């Protein structure tokens, strides 16, 4: 599903080139739940941005669902982001003045060819799956942090993507809400979706069945772990 090879990313910071990624290589198969871990400045966010088509690498190759990113125009990338990828951000990125419904509907607005009637059903289904059906017409800004992140997950789900990218999804949440959010991601994985999670918290990372550790722009370790569902004891932190 995802194949990266010698991925490099160079930034110009005040005229000084900084190498955020120094040649990263790995493959992620369909249906995996992968945590990308690393200290801040390790390049894990840069990696996630490239994996999620928000940024292009300086060199190296990236194939998503068999298609090379180099061969795709910005418009095609936008189309793939819309159709095949879902996003969950640390800071939620909801439009606070819009209702939950309107927030969740946004990806569908950019997916051409979904009739409005079907759109409504999809939005409702996504909101029900995160357990916020009673808040459907509440302004997003009035929700709690945990609820906001669940709305963001519903938004990531609504277009039925193959991969969900989550960038520190529990970073702004208390442990109880964080656990709820991780359990939702876990259940999405159970339903066959590929989840790629960036975090620096070990406990959060351990929801995955594979952990890729990044340090100084390189893969430090890449190992499969046993599903920690049994080891976990309710409390995340």
């Amino acid at each position, binding site marked *: 599903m995802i194949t990266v090879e010698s991925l490099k990313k160079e930034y110009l910071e005040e005229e000084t080139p900084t190498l955020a990624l120094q040649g990263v290589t790995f493959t992620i198969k369909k249906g995996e739940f992968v945590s990308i871990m690393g200290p801040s400045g390790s390049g894990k966010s840069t990696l996630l941005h490239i994996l999620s088509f*928000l940024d292009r690498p300086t060199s190296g190759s990236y194939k998503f669902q068999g298609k090379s990113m180099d061969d795709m125009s*910005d*418009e095609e990338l936008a*189309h793939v982001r*819309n*159709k095949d990828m879902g996003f969950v951000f640390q800071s939620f*990125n909801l439009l606070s003045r819009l209702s939950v419904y309107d927030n969740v509907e946004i*990806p569908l607005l*950019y997916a*051409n060819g979904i009739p409005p009637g079907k759109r409504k059903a999809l939005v409702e289904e996504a909101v029900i799956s995160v357990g916020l059906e009673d808040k459907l017409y509440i302004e997003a800004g009035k929700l709690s942090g945990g609820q906001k992140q669940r709305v963001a997950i519903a938004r990531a789900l609504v277009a039925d993507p193959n991969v969900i990218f989550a960038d520190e999804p529990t970073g702004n949440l208390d442990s109880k809400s964080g656990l709820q959010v991780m359990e939702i991601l876990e259940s999405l994985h159970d339903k066959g979706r590929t989840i790629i999670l960036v975090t620096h918290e070990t406990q959060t990372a351990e929801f995955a069945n594979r952990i890729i550790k990044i340090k100084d722009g390189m893969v430090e370790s890449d190992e499969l772990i046993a599903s920690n569902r049994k080891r976990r004891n309710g409390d995340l932190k």
Partner: protein
Amino acid sequence: MLLRDAFKTATRSLTHGKMRSILTMLGIVIGISSVIVLMSIGQSAQDLILGEVESIGSNLIIVTPGAPSGDAFAPPPSAQGIVITTLLERDIKALEREPSIKGAAPMVSGQAEVVYGNNNKTVSYQGSTAELFVIQNLELKSGFAFTKSDVNSGNHVAVIGPDLAETLFGKYVNPLNKTIRVKNISFRVVGVLEASGTGAFGVNQGDMVIIPITVAQKELLGIIYFNNILVQANPEYEIDFAKSRLTFALRQSHGITDPKKDDFIIQTQADILSILGSITSILTLFLAAIASISLIVGGIGIMNIMLVAVTERTREIGLRKAVGATDGDILKQFLIESVLLTFIGGAIGIAVGAGIVGLIYFVLTTFFASLGWVFAFPISAVVLGFAVSGIAGLVFGIYPARQAGKKNPIDALRYE
């Protein structure tokens, strides 16, 4: 993105910042309404002026002395204070022989104080023949017009306008057969004109005094020539034919063989209409151009506020792009917002403009009735108003919208 969704998104973000949207629109409202008002005033003035000229009749030809300058906009020499004495009695005789001409009335005019008892008023008087009443279609409220024999024998009789009659005699005295003094010469009032308002040559008919031309020439002015001749073409002939016959007759009468040496100017109503029409059109255009300055200022206001909105909504742009919006989708969204702003502003501006035009019409017709102001609200101004406001939205919205579309999603999402 469907256009319908784009509109929904745009209206939503406009209604979220209601006060800002309204203030931004205000610039366009003022711009469009001033264009509308000034265009309508220009149109009204044009209708008024052209209406006056039309009222003198389409088969009317005016002969003024002086050499044609070739420049239609140049005033005749007589208007520049140059006295030309070439139009004489024999010209009238020559014109009366011409079958394509129905009638010719020589005219002289001047200003004089008119006195009755203790009342007086300085007005312009016109000396002419009985033909004038026929040619100008002057109707009388009471009494009669003076006759050919009055003119021939130089009788001291006068026909006066209704406003002057009221000034001199008040409401309750019948002016007929009373004696008024014009330049200290006594005249017996034989008729009072029906019409009020402005007649040919811009003379206020309400304050007019018409006396036999023989008396005016000999006793008031001391001249033997005419200031101009009003000619009525015979309706059985084409006006242009009558005009050429008139030219021929006058050349013969003046002994002119070289057409370049004409010492008279012949203008039909159509000639005057086209000159005045182009003058007033230029005036209207000029007024609209001044008004459009405020429109440009309003448009810059739109651009400014849209740029602010783009910066404020950087994160929103980032999010929309992350979930699949293309540069074009974002551009479309912001462009629709600015066009919607200007279009609604334009619609309100047209309505406000119409209100002001109506108010001006009401005030002018109520308090200045004699002006004869006409209501004109040109459809072209409405169409122009909508078109201009829409275009303003596009022109002033495109730059901010492009800025929005070009934003990099990662930078946009990180924006604080």
